[in-house]
């Protein structure tokens, strides 16, 4: 893994996140330090409520840390103005959600096009790139179907195509197999693995020990802190 020596894509320094719900304060993250280098495949594991989704949201600039600092590809996220941050989310980061988050009234290819729309890519070019992203996940033949007409696995593959369509430097996935049966989950996992094999940096939040085994690096989170950070010896063992 030559990428391991490069500039970190992600650097977290003492990141905390506090949610205030009425008088109650929920400490989702209690000081997280983390570095992820380009090309890594990181599985973030931990029980429910451990703060792993919050961590992912902060990594994806969907949420800002309450304290601490976050550098994304060398730039401090907190210092990036809102509009630039929106562009960053669209161009540098691809999201995959547990519940897919596809727009129900739009076809698969229109869903995949969405990040390109906000990037200002012309229509034809958009369609071409979206179709090739769908092809990449093996769904070119379902391009005109709406999410309701697709199986769970197919929906998640559409979502992955959407995450990849802008060729992001960082792909973030939150329980990507959580809503799928184990067989379909395997397929999605294999797909994510090949995404990583193509050189993408991948951070996956999961309960699934299978993902943990395939990832080159596993971070265990408990009560808002990193409990363990372990690298497997042969991350590319099973392509």
């Amino acid at each position, binding site marked *: 893994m030559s990428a391991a020596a490069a500039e970190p894509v992600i650097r977290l320094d003492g990141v905390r996140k506090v949610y205030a719900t009425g008088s109650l304060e929920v400490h989702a993250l209690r000081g997280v330090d983390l570095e992820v280098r380009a090309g890594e495949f990181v599985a973030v594991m931990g029980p429910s409520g451990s703060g792993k989704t919050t961590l992912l949201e902060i990594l994806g600039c969907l949420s800002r840390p309450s304290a601490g600092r976050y550098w994304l590809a060398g730039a401090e996220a907190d210092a990036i103005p809102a*509009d630039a941050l*929106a562009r960053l989310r669209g161009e540098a980061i691809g*999201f995959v959600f547990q519940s897919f988050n596809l727009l129900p009234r739009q076809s698969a290819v229109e869903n995949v096009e969405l990040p390109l729309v906000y990037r200002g890519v012309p229509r034809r070019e958009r369609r071409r790139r979206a179709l090739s992203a769908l092809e990449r996940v093996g769904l070119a033949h379902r391009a005109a179907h709406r999410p309701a007409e697709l199986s769970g696995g197919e929906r998640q593959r559409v979502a992955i195509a959407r995450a990849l369509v802008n060729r992001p430097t960082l792909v973030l996935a939150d329980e990507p197999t959580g809503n799928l049966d184990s067989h379909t989950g395997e397929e999605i996992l294999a797909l994510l693995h090949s995404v990583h094999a193509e050189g993408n940096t991948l951070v996956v939040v999961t309960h699934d020990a299978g993902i943990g085994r395939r990832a080159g690096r596993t971070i265990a989170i408990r009560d808002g802190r990193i409990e363990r950070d372990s690298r497997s010896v042969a991350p590319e063992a099973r392509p």
Partner: protein
Amino acid sequence: MSAREVLREALRLLVAHKLRSTLTLFGIVWGTAAVIFLVGWGRGVRDKLELGFFKAGRNMGEVWAGRVSEEFTPATDRRFLWFTSDDVAVLRRRARLPALIGAEAWELLPAAAGGRGLTVDVRGIEPEVHEIRGIPIAAGRGINRSDVSQRRRVVLLGDLVRRRLLGPQGRVGAWVRIAGIPFQVVGLFAPVGTQLASDRYYVDEQVWVPISTVQALWPSPWSEEPVVTKIVYRMRERALLEETEREVRAILASRLHVAPDDDEAISIWSSVKMFNRLPIEQMRGLFFVLAVATLGIGGIGVMNMMLDSVHERRREIGLRLAVGARRRDVVAQFFAETFCVTASGGLAGAALGILVCVLLRSARLPELAPVPVLGADTVVAALVVMVGVGVLAGVIPAWRAARVDPAGTLRME
């Protein structure tokens, strides 16, 4: 996202959410059309009342003499009173407020022509009365000064009198007999129709002749002098109603040696006074309140629809932000969507409201049946309010949803 892109996306989403769009559209169409119709109707009622009230004279006061009231004199000395042409001359000389003064001498007499006859309201008039009452003449001419000075036996016929006596072919130049005396027809009044305020007969049942002719042919049993039944005057403007009345009353009271506030001795009547007493403004107010309520209900419907749609689409907003939408992209999208719905609904509603108004106006209705009057201001106001409410209701919640961290909107289930 370019404006074209935003619009294209908006239209696509509207088509995708047909039911929601249709319901929203319906609320706006209904609200806009109802407001245009209701306000127009209110105006129409007012216009028709005004038309009906002032057919026999606009901004006019009418004065006649009666009897000295018991309050001002012993019961044994309750004189009968009348005006003479001299009183009118004095009034003309001294009164400052009336714009124009005219005298009328009235009789109810049988009129006949070609074997047909009916009782008509004979009005001997001075030429000024034409101008004061403003009743349109369809053919021929009115009574002029030389008619009066020479006591000519010439007559103008009301429309009904003409039809009854002369038939549809009745023309200027024909002769009619009034109380047996032949008069030549010099003019024909245009049909006036139903009057909401009238003194004695409707104009259509009147015949007008020179005042001096009436005074000479049918002199008063009470007086040697030429008697005037009614003095009419036109006030300069409606606001001067009271002042004008006071001045006229004071001058005539001193002429008749009665107390100026004895309104049994000198009566003044004005269709303006009566018109002012009608609850027209209250009625228009009611229509206006109804219209505003309709607009409000329509607005609330639209608002509800929009709030609902934004709420159920919070995840969508979150997702759009996650894939690179700026806050203003989201707001622009919702603006475009709501604007497309509300503007098309508003235009359709305006078209519907205008159509109903136009159809009613062209329908064959009784003359004084109120028909809605279209006002550009109403159409514009209805459109602005409906579209404004709709757009605000769509954009504000979207703006609020887009303001928080996308993580918050995405997590919502």
